[in-house]
């Protein structure tokens, strides 16, 4: 009984730490209804796997759980693609300064590169924690992040000179994901 109480307390402490950031993580990647559904799944997994949560880095681990739950939710590439386009359209004026270039350049990258960049820029994670969230090695993340930044900068620079059509050549890796 005392063990149950202690476990509940640990779970409550964990949730108080990750609840808001995981919500943001989900809202960045799906619609509000989907985010709420997936959040419930994330909490369920965190409760079940409470003993697996690394105490020194609970948040990136929780992002990793959210990533897995979201993948289940978005199962089916067509659904995911529709959603990405809808989210981009629904973001009112957010990309005004870049005239949509940055968004297009980001979406032209392979999905894993996009996710590495999002976790770096939006969740503000260092490579080691991105590795934890994505189940990659830290080295693979560093390589991917370096390459993705370079590609994004190149796309933005060339976009200034050639206009939006100049980005189309970036879609070199997207074809692997059906």
């Amino acid at each position: 009984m005392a063990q149950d109480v202690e476990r509940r307390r640990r779970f409550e402490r964990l949730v108080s730490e990750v609840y808001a950031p995981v919500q943001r993580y989900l809202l960045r990647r799906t619609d509000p209804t989907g985010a709420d559904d997936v959040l419930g799944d994330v909490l369920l997994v965190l409760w079940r796997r409470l003993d697996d949560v690394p105490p020194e880095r609970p948040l990136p681990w929780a992002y990793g759980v959210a990533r897995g739950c979201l993948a289940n939710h978005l199962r089916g590439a067509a659904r995911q693609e529709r959603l990405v386009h809808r989210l981009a359209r629904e973001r009112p004026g957010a990309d005004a300064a870049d005239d949509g270039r940055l968004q297009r350049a980001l979406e032209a990258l392979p999905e894993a590169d996009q996710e590495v960049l999002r976790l770096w820029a939006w969740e503000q994670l260092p490579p080691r924690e991105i590795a934890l969230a994505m189940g990659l090695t830290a080295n693979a993340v560093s390589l991917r992040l370096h390459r993705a930044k370079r590609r994004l900068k190149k796309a933005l620079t060339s976009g200034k000179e050639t206009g939006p059509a100049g980005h189309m050549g970036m879609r070199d890796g997207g074809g692997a994901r059906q």
Partner: protein
Amino acid sequence: MSESADDELRTRLGRIDPAGPDVPVDPATSPRAAELMERAMQQTSTDEEPDVDLPRSRPGRRPAWWAAGIAAVAAVAAAVFVFGGSGSPVPNGSPGGDDTTTLALSLPATPEARCRAFDVAVLRTMQVAFEGTVTATDGEQTTLTVDRWFTGGDADRVTIDVPDGRTSESLGIEFRSGARYLVTATDGTVNGCGYSGPATAELESAFADAFPRR
């Protein structure tokens, strides 16, 4: 790549963040949070747990290079390991760093016998299985950066040699730079017959079934 250029890129990406700090979210003290927490704690049957690919608790904390090498060599007798630089056990994070480890595989030298129907049970028995992104490919060799190991190794990079007179297309795989693949190998030789190929949702799902994280 300069730090200030990185900072600028991060700032610009921050401007297209759909849920940045100015977007309100439900706090952990809300009734909704309490409801979701209570619902989670009420679940007792493991049957109801979402089937999720869980993160490892200690990514990047790989075994010392020699231990990884021994384990992988035991699993892949014909594979050749090349350790660049000093073989430091801790990734230094620098692109193209000296501690990158490479696993060398090859395509079969002779055409494969008839393929049997794809079976996850067979996939599960593969000595080597990983997901990787092609960073370079020509007629003689394809190089992939490993995104994830399922079994049989811990290298950062895998090279696949193409024997004379063979092409990856003859295996039903067309390696394209920048694309992601799921690859299996036995005795240092990449398997075709649907056991290696582009990382489609179907193949991802089969690999997840064959090699559960836990």
